[in-house]
């Protein structure tokens, strides 16, 4: 296998109704080959019903160094969760 082949990220839909999930990556000359390889590499045991591939270089990712700044502010917003609200036990279906 040539290192010149670009890297593709592979997403598999496990079964009807579910979203595609990232499962890994592989090298291929083009998208068609990437799908064929993904089928062989990632779905040998019926792991999927649909494959997406995307050039890894096309993916923009958040900076791990900035994780705190990005995600920490959600931590004290407990009121976004239903359990934050005290509803008397007698009240049903809420």
């Amino acid at each position, binding site marked *: 296998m040539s290192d010149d082949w670009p890297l593709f990220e592979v997403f598999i839909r496990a079964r009807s109704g579910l979203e595609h999930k990232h499962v890994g990556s592989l090298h291929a000359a083009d998208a068609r080959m990437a799908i064929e390889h993904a089928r062989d590499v990632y779905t040998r045991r019926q792991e999927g019903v649909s494959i997406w591939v995307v050039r890894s270089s*096309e993916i923009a990712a958040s900076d791990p160094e900035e994780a705190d700044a990005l995600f920490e502010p959600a931590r004290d917003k407990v*009121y976004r969760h239903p359990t934050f609200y005290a509803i008397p036990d007698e009240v049903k279906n809420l």
Partner: protein
Amino acid sequence: MYTQALDSPTPAVRPESAGQPALERRFEERIERDEKIEPKDWMPEAYRQTLIRQISQHAHSEIVGMLPEGNWITRAPSLRRKAVLIAKVQDEGGHGMYLYSAAETLGIARAELLEQLLDGRAKYSSIFNYPTLTWADVGAIGWLVDGAAIMNQIPICRCSYGPYARAMVRICKEESFHQRQGFEIMLALARGTPQQRAMAQDALERWWWPSIMMFGPSDASSKHTAQSMRWRIKRFTNDELRQRFVDVTVPQAEFLGLTIPDPALHWDEAAQHYLTGPIDWSEFKAVLQGNGPCNEERIQARRKAHEEGRWVRDAAAAHAAKHGRVRA
């Protein structure tokens, strides 16, 4: 998360051009087996159009729905209530975004959907054309309007179109705090001073019937129900969902010690349901046709936001063109 306009490595022949009856039959069989239809699957044009209409109306409702509640952010009675209300309105915006994305998987552009909303062609839930006159309205909206929305949305989590169903799962999960915060507000008012109780009662009186009407026209006069149920976009009829809502909400109102503004409302022992008096559909139609108390105001607010945000969109595009190397 949905990807629009997926590229196939080798473009397939547009399926509409050949083998239509066979494709139609296969589609029906898949629906019958409760399989999900996905963006790249063949689907009848009417199914596609029905979904575009329904999902985009749903998205518009979320976005327009930010306005009546947003009205009270600056006047929330405490910092806690304010933080909660901001979080809720923010969620509604997010829900609109999930839904626009789901609609876009059907081959319509976001810009086109927004244009339909802003020029008045698109509809959105009639409930958001009513004003929020007091703080109690924020409670009543959470309790009743979000309660009705949840009742409507939970079955859509099982709808036949994959992207819509998945968006709904996410929305329903996030929605669960909305109703509880609303009920909490109502409870605080109901247990408060006589003036606060009166405020809660007044809000219930104004929001009850519009909430009941949120489920749409009665089954007898609903244009779309039968086909949507065959396609498993809808799982229950408008009247079935409305009845469920009434059944769970009446005891909640009793707990609050508030009176539902319907003298005919009663428990029917034989039916095992609370039965309501007749619904004034002329009001529903009038509001839907643009003659509600706030139709004009809502669309004006959306247009204003769109216009005033233009320079931001232009600046972002200019910046991306100058510096952005999106592609390697």
